[in-house]
């Protein structure tokens, strides 16, 4: 077990290094001179000497390969560098933005799980085939609806129309509700889609017939026996779901005028604040890696047949029992 975790951590570091390298190549190959960006588009009277001084200050005058290793060494020390326009440490900017984002992401995830699972169960539970099909048609719609449009509708209805929630800001629980719903829509739809499919498969398994034959009611069949097996594929995509939530915050936080990681990302990209963009990419990669690690460690708890620490980890792709 310990060896397994160490190996996984080494893999995680490899992934982070790859993320660093790729983001470095992409960001530093972008058109645009960072020094000119610091000076701003209206700065027509800046002398070349002044620009050189700026490049020197941010280490932009060194050869790319030197910059690559300089930044890598700093990264190992936990230093993500400085945001160009504000001069503040990237770690500080990300840390500051995080709590507000976690609030809506956590609430969004909760809503997504409750409604996604609820919809999947309801659809398979339903005796009426037409109703079941109708319910199963909802998740693809939820995935397809543009988050931006949905967020504006929410604001229009529940803030400007009926003043239930504030349209702007991050003060109090009420302000988190609409952004969380915005985040929950695509995520909940993904969960519902996966779960309803795997639940339907599981319910066709012979062991379910056995359970029925033993006289169990539909609730017991669904919750006690089928759901536990069917939940595994949904768990596998947790990393994907976390990624979805993170990227969803860009839209949710912009429309609802909340501070947070999504807003920091949008501003950083718009201003070509290269160190900050790279910091966010690395942070997202770290979250992704960590989530997948946790998921792999949780598998055996849900399904005792899965044993980790062997040469090959059994990655369960469907709910079909071995």
């Amino acid at each position, binding site marked *: 077990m310990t060896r397994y975790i160490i190996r996984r951590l080494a893999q995680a570091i490899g992934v982070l290094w790859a993320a660093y390298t790729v983001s470095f190549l992409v960001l530093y190959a972008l058109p645009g001179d960072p020094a000119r960006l610091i000076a701003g588009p209206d700065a027509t009277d800046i002398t070349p000497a*002044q620009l050189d001084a700026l490049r020197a200050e941010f280490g932009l005058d060194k050869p790319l390969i030197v910059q690559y290793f300089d930044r890598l060494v700093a990264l190992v020390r936990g230093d993500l560098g400085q945001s160009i326009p504000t001069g503040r440490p990237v770690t500080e900017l990300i840390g500051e933005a995080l709590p507000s984002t976690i609030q809506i992401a956590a609430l969004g995830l909760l809503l997504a799980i409750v409604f996604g699972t609820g919809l999947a169960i309801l659809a398979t539970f339903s005796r009426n085939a037409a109703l079941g099909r109708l319910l199963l048609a909802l998740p693809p719609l939820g995935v397809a609806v543009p988050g931006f449009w949905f967020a504006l509708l929410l604001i229009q209805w529940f803030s400007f129309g009926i003043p239930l929630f504030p349209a*702007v800001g991050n003060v109090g629980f009420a302000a988190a509700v609409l952004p969380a719903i915005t985040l929950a829509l695509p995520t909940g739809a993904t969960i519902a889609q996966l779960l309803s499919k795997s639940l339907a498969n599981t319910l066709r398994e012979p062991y379910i017939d056995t359970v029925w034959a033993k006289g169990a009611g539909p609730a017991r069949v669904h919750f006690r026996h089928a759901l536990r097996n069917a939940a595994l594929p949904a768990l596998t995509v947790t990393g994907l779901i976390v990624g979805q939530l993170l990227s969803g915050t860009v839209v949710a936080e912009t*429309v609802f005028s909340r501070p*947070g990681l999504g807003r920091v990302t949008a501003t950083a990209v718009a201003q070509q604040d290269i160190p900050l963009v790279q910091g966010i990419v690395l942070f997202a990669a770290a979250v992704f890696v960590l989530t997948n690690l946790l998921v792999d460690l949780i598998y055996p708890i849900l399904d005792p047949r899965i044993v980790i620490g062997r040469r090959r980890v059994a990655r369960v792709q469907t709910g079909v029992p071995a």
Partner: protein
Amino acid sequence: MSSFHWGRTALLGTAFALTVALSACAGGSAGTGTTAGTDAEPAVGGDLTFALANDPISLNPSGTGSGNDTWYVTRQLVDSLLYQNPDTNELEPWLAKSWEANADATVFTFELRDDVTFSDGTPFTAADVKGTFDDIIAAGPKSQAVSSFVGYQETTVLDDYTVQVTFSTPNSAFPNSTSSVPLGIVGAATLAVPYDDRANGADVVGTGPFVLNTYTKDVETVLDRRDGYAWSPASRDLDGEAYLDSVTFPIVPEPAVRTGSLTSGQVDVIGGVQPVDVETLTASSFPLVSRGNPGVSFGEYFNLSRPIVADIAVREAIAHATNATEIRDTALNDEFNVGTSILAATTPGYADESDYFEFDPKTSAKLLDGAGWKLGDDGIREKDGTRLSLVVNWITNFGPNQTSLELLQQQLKDVGIELTLQGGDVPSFLEKQTSGDFDISWQNLSRADGDVLRTTFSSAAANTLRIDDPTLEALLQEQLATGDPAARADVLADAQERIASQYYQIPVHELTSILATQPDVGGVTLGADSRLDQLTGAWTAAE
């Protein structure tokens, strides 16, 4: 991203138009002008909520923030040596009681008021002016203000209330520059803090009518009234403290949400009103505060290093094929002026050159025929196997740009000219400007002084248009070396005529800054730079 915004905004604007039009009662037409609201008596006290699109990023007045939205806030914290009256465009005394320039505009002497204090209680003296200016020079390109100090030699403290600024080369634009926010005077307590550490505003000490209470990144900035403020510029007709107790600037990035926040009564004033929302707001009686931006107008700027547009006949043909009024009416609305000169009408020294730009496709076709461009089979002209096809470089950050340019594309196609639109964000636009990979640039620049002609067209500046015209260059340098304002205006008029007659630029439309307020808000005004003026006279009757 911004053009994407535009589509979404247009969609939502339509939605709002419907809902608001249904709920709005038949109110009188909303007043439009530089002053908002009714003629009611100003109310004293209260908080004004003013929604802005962008986080200020840096509250250091001379630092680089997010442009207009930053200055809307920092304008409230600092005063300037001189005040440019938005009604007359004349410079008036402010922190300086009087000022004079020498004949060749290299030495400027300011007599300062002796009754002004900073918000930390220290008196305002000549040393603070010197400190502020020297600090900007030391910060270099990190400061937005450094462009105003080309040729700066030194600032000398002659006595406690007299200060002299000396340049090695003429800089007649300097007195005007002193009225801008980035050259606002900060106290010694600010200057003692390293430049990079001032962004959060905690150490920014000014003499303005408001002081910083709190700044929360991406959320809001709250300002409180400065007690004892008594040095407003005389022409503002306000001699004391601000009416408001406080001003809150929440950050609301999405234009449609700003509009909705105003119409649903959640905020008092919004900035950055999009052209598409103008009709909705006026139809439901929300007063607009608008003013044309001074500076160089939106239009076709030619890259003179490219062979096709290096020919003046082609440039003139494009001028007569461009129907600016149609573009204004389609992409924008009446709040925006059709361009009549390279300079916008609110710029000091503006001269009308519209005779050069008459819409007349027949003349246009004749000019192209004369220059050897013959119509090809596909309706696009050709000459010696070269198609009359031009690349337009433009920025997606202003929503209507795309509509404007698509219409222009059609207009020019009617006379056999093909345009390829190459849009991008600010960094990629700048990159193309630097590499010269364009025939026409669609751009503008807001600046409250005619010297913007020099920064745009001088071959000694960045010269992204690759112009080599000694006649124009001489005029651009002469205006900078003419201390007398009237004489300088004549030189600026000559420069505008030169640019128009050579068709270096074809003006299409001016930019307008638009705010919208609640009907019970008054005294919110735009300054001579068409950015928010100080809110000393602003009031709200709402509870």
